[in-house]
């Protein structure tokens, strides 16, 4: 440690305790007195600054005796502090937090696999339906997604959607309940939820023998796509059911007229669909002639199975 004297009072002090005050080396009391005499209000660090002892470390105040320490950034540092400065360790709390977060992240990524599988299952459901017409496969995949992430409105909504679709496909009564429970916004152009809901309502009305309501719904469905032969057949079927139940002559006429329109359209249909449509026309005619209201399953039991459609169609043919 180096020493020097105050230029005013002569006190010998360590160099680090002296203040250079307008180029005069002074102790702190003398420096304050001088500044007061000069009337200095704001201290300019270029004119007033504490001296740095080159033999004392600025960080740990280690005394190097007569030997001067190496300067880093213009300040003397002892070898130990230099080492610490160049190889400053990250604090323990930071390292511990980093390790903990890393462990939690690994856990989170492993956990995320379940979510990935759920999303892929949903994707599989969509592809099964739109690319392959596999309603049952789509429902199974959607159910898998729901079981993996049951707390999500998305998986719940799609589960109800695909289950409703499956119910509609198999003439199951639960279609309406499922479609009503979807609860997520779906693009109508792609998902046709409102259309399917109406189909399910039609099916429910038919099951509860509310034939006027069923006929009204079938007409609404036809309005959404007047070129659709199956929807037109649906109108004929409901009109025939109303006639069969209540003897409504106007309904019979409407059924006959609509069947004639369907018959005219059949010629343009592909071969596979043609056979199915002819089968359905026969079923509606049977209803008109016998006034027996047989649903699809009952009719198939009596007269044999319907030809399989080339791609699953979700129109309820009751």
């Amino acid at each position: 440690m180096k020493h020097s004297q105050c230029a005013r009072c002569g006190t010998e002090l360590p160099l680090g305790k002296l203040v250079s005050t307008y180029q005069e080396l002074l102790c702190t009391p003398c420096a304050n007195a001088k500044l007061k005499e000069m009337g200095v209000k704001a201290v300019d660090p270029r004119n007033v600054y504490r001296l740095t002892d080159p033999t004392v470390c600025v960080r740990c105040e280690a005394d190097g005796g007569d030997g001067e320490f190496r300067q880093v950034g213009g300040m003397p540092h002892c070898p130990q502090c230099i080492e610490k400065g160049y190889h400053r360790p990250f604090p323990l709390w930071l390292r511990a937090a980093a390790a903990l977060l890393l462990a939690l992240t690994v856990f989170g990524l492993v956990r995320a696999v379940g979510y990935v599988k759920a999303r892929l299952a949903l994707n599989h459901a969509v592809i099964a339906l739109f690319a392959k017409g596999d309603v049952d496969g789509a429902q199974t995949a959607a159910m898998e997604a729901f079981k993996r992430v049951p707390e999500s409105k998305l998986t719940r909504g799609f589960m109800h959607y695909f289950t409703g679709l499956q119910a509609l496909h198999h003439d199951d009564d639960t279609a309406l309940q499922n479609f009503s429970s979807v609860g997520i916004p779906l693009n109508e152009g792609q998902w046709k939820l409102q259309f399917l809901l109406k189909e399910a309502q039609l099916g429910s009305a038919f099951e509860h023998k509310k034939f006027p309501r069923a006929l009204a719904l079938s007409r609404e469905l036809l309005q959404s796509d007047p070129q659709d032969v199956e929807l037109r057949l649906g109108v004929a079927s409901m009109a025939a059911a109303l006639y069969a139940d209540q003897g409504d002559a106007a309904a019979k006429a409407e059924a006959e007229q609509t069947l004639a329109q369907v018959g005219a359209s059949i010629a343009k249909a592909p071969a596979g669909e043609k056979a199915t449509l002819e089968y359905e026309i026969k079923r509606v005619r049977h209803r008109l002639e016998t006034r027996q209201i047989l649903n699809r399953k009952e009719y198939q039991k009596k007269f044999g199975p319907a030809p399989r459609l080339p791609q699953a169609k979700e129109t309820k043919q009751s």
Partner: protein
Amino acid sequence: MIIPGFLIAWLTFPGVIVHEAAHMLFCRFYGIYIHDVKFFRFATKGPAGYVIHEPTDNFTANFFITVGPFLLNTALCLLFCLPALLPIHYFETDDPFAIFFGWLGISIGMHAFPSTQDARNLWAAAQKQLKSGKYWTLPFFPLVVIIYVGNILSIFWFDALYAAGVGFFLPEYLFKAVFRTVI
């Protein structure tokens, strides 16, 4: 909505810590003396964190010390948002674990951009190199401008948008590309 900067720093303090840690990491890597480090402080004025290191003429060191936070914060934002991506962003659940990691990732991402002080340091370093005839440093000047602009745009939540882009939208895009999902 303008929220005081110090409040945002308090709410996203992990990002400040990682930002300073990144500076420190590259100082250590390039053997630059570190005088002082404050990873985080609850201050209403001045920086929420800082690293004071010795100046260096090594431009590469200067560059990486400056953009270190951009690299490390971006990488960690992406990593920590991954466990949150599907539960929060896709399935919209209230999973606390995912919410924690979502907050952590976004907080870190929001502090990816170097500060204006960092930009000033890089500008000064590039200027020095240019004066000594090293013209390859010219492209770094527009980079400094980008850093400044990024900091100004943080008033309009650019930092949050960046974090959301890195943490959620980029992984979502990659997920769809890798798994070829249609939904």
